[in-house]
């Protein structure tokens, strides 16, 4: 077999990943995906092995719950056929490989820098002279927005090509948030430093990313997790989902100038994040999740507290939503705004909410469940219009669903064991992958260790890495005044993308 099959959070000997000729590697991975909507690329990256670059490609199969891993050695003297010419979902990955290592692709449609990493191959390319697509035309005009935006948000540049009020094309340029996180994972050797880094990948997904980091570290060290740890992480992930979705509903109401909805959803987020503070001392859950320890055990008292909070939350949340969804002025802004077609969703390899807004059933909680999701009989919420309305509806329903999950979970709060088991040492020459369904969608971390058990590479992929392109496609033929609501309905991460 020219690939190896692993499961989520499984550690394998790096030598067991077959190393293929590029042509074989190309055919294998593109055939995995071609005409298989249940499969997609969860990570594809390179790292230095002496003078060459080793590429690792991970394709997840949602039906069989397997991940197919294969590898290939390339260098920057040869030219390579690009996967992207055949399958658009590899577009970003190949751009990243090109940017980091100078690997040359023959027929990539769009070989532009991804994030202007400090250790990029070609330092002459700078963020100030990004090669934007432009059209010479008397009728059309360009609108540039950013990197600094009008509100309190992260930086990124949006370049629109418009025909009057209508957007024909949007190009999104990122990289302003690049802090060199992946590199710091190798340099900072203390576990607590790495946990801190994981918390900072995207602060709004603290729980999601630290869970991925903790799971990968525990798998690498062969640590057997007691149930209490899995339990806490599952609750925290669902709380994070409730909090951010609710905040997003507030933002969406702000963007359609619906003050009541904006205030009510805005204030409803507070009891949820304040609960996180009651639990772990931080409103975003920083400090809550650490590899190998149950830092803040979830006690029966906390269980009682969260039920109280959810009871009053749910009442107000449902009431506000009922009102919002019968307002013609709100619905007319949501419906048929920012549509991304089913085909496009599939082609670009969208994940999480963005996949689920148009038929695509992609949810790690079901397909590659971590923690104790397999006990929850989770059924992903799927919508069918791919518009703002679908994205808003998903949030509304996922919040209710997460509440249900938490209620069910806290019926049985696991006992906290007294005995402490050490994390142990990381295995040598190993490869591990960890997938977590954060509120935005699938988070994927990969780690490889050397013969001393030290990290050789720590690769992070936020769901936004796939989904930014969906936003660019969504706004085509929309009025430019609908951009804010489109943007908010996706709420993608800048820092999670830029790393």
């Amino acid at each position, binding site marked *: 077999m020219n690939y190896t099959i692993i499961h989520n959070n499984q550690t394998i000997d790096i030598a067991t990943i077959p190393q293929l000729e590029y042509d074989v590697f190309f055919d294998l991975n593109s055939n995995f995906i071609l005409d298989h909507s249940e499969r997609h690329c969860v990570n594809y990256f390179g790292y230095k092995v002496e003078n060459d670059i080793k590429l690792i490609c991970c394709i997840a199969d949602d039906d069989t719950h397997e991940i197919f891993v294969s590898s290939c050695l390339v260098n920057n003297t040869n030219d390579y056929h690009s996967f992207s010419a055949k399958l658009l979902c590899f577009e970003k990955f190949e751009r990243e490989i090109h940017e980091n290592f100078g690997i040359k692709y023959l027929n990539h449609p769009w070989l532009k820098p991804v994030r202007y990493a400090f250790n990029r191959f070609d330092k002459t390319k700078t963020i100030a002279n990004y090669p934007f697509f432009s059209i010479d035309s008397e009728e059309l005009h360009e609108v540039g927005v950013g990197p600094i935006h009008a509100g309190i948000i992260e930086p990124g540049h949006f370049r629109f090509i418009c025909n009057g009020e209508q957007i024909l094309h949007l190009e999104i340029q990122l990289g302003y948030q690049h802090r060199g996180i992946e590199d710091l994972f190798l340099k900072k050797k203390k576990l607590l430093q790495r946990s801190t880094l994981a918390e900072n990948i995207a602060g709004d997904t603290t729980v999601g990313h630290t869970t991925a980091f903790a799971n990968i570290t525990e798998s690498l060290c062969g640590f057997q997790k007691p149930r209490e740890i899995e339990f806490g992480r599952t609750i925290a992930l669902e709380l994070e989902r409730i909090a951010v979705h609710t905040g997003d509903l507030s933002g969406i109401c702000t963007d359609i100038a619906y003050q009541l909805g904006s205030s009510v959803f805005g204030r409803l987020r507070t009891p949820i994040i304040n609960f996180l503070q*009651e639990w772990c001392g931080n409103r975003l859950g920083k400090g809550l999740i650490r590899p190998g320890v149950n830092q803040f055990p979830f006690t029966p008292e906390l269980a009682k507290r969260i039920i109280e909070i959810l009871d009053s939350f749910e009442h107000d949340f449902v009431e506000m939503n009922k009102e919002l969804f019968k307002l013609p002025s709100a619905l007319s802004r949501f419906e048929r705004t920012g549509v991304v077609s089913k085909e496009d969703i599939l082609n670009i390899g969208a994940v999480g909410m963005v996949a689920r807004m148009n038929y695509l059933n992609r949810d790690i909680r079901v397909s590659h469940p971590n923690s104790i999701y397999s006990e929850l009989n989770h059924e992903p919420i799927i919508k069918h219009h791919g518009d703002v309305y679908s994205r808003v509806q998903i949030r509304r329903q996922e919040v209710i669903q997460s509440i249900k999950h938490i209620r069910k979970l806290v019926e049985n709060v696991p006992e906290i064991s007294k005995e402490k088991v050490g994390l142990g040492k990381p295995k040598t020459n190993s490869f591990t992958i960890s997938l977590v369904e954060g509120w935005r969608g699938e988070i994927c971390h990969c780690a490889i260790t050397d013969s001393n058990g030290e990290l050789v590479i720590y690769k992070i992929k936020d769901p936004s890495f796939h989904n930014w392109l969906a936003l660019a496609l969504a706004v085509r033929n929309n009025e430019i005044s609908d951009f804010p609501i489109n943007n908010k309905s996706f709420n993608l991460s800048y820092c999670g993308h830029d790393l």
Partner: protein
Amino acid sequence: MLDNLKILYHQGKQFIPNVQTAKVPGIFRGRPIISSEKVNEVELVEICPTNAITANPLAIDLGKCTFCGECAKCFPNKIQFTTDYKLATNLRENLIVKEGDQNAIQINQDKIRNEIKNFFGNSLKLRQVCAGGDNSCEWELNAANNVQFDMGRFGIEFVASPRHADGIVITGPITENMAEPLQICYDAIPNPKIIVLASTDAISGGIFENSPAVDRSFLNKYPIDLYLPGNPVHPLTIINGLLGLTKR
């Protein structure tokens, strides 16, 4: 209409009446207190992920601390985090809490620039620039404006253009890629160009302090008017800090 009124009624009063005396729920890691107990200081210093702890005498630099709580967990008799969220100051050295310090962290009124002191008592407009912030401090800055914390009641607002602003609130360690946009934004702000650094990453770089992707040279050029520690900074720290600076 009736439905709207019903919703309004169900919300009740949400705002925090007094942002200066409000209590934060549950455990919160605010200003630490360091006791005089003898401990293995080398071990304690070694715990910290961001080198915020120094020995002889033992001190914690809140400009570097990520408030992870690990030091207090390992040495509970030595270090304790109180729920005091009034952490803001205009002097960098005030952020260093030493062994035995019990006092609240102060804003030194004499050191506030005169141009700031006398003008912004009733209205302060700020521009926010995120320069590598992880969207947690941005989230808390937004929260300071929500119906509960309601910073707007003090006339403090975030504005959409640097031209309308009295100052700038910076979050994040300042990435190399944001260094130029930050400078352009700063140049566009009229005097007195107040600079506020929000959260650990902005104050010291935090865990990103020595990252080659970060360029903090901007901060060497100008005086910093206010430090707002936290990871991320709590809305009550933000509001009390800004109120303290504009002297109310």
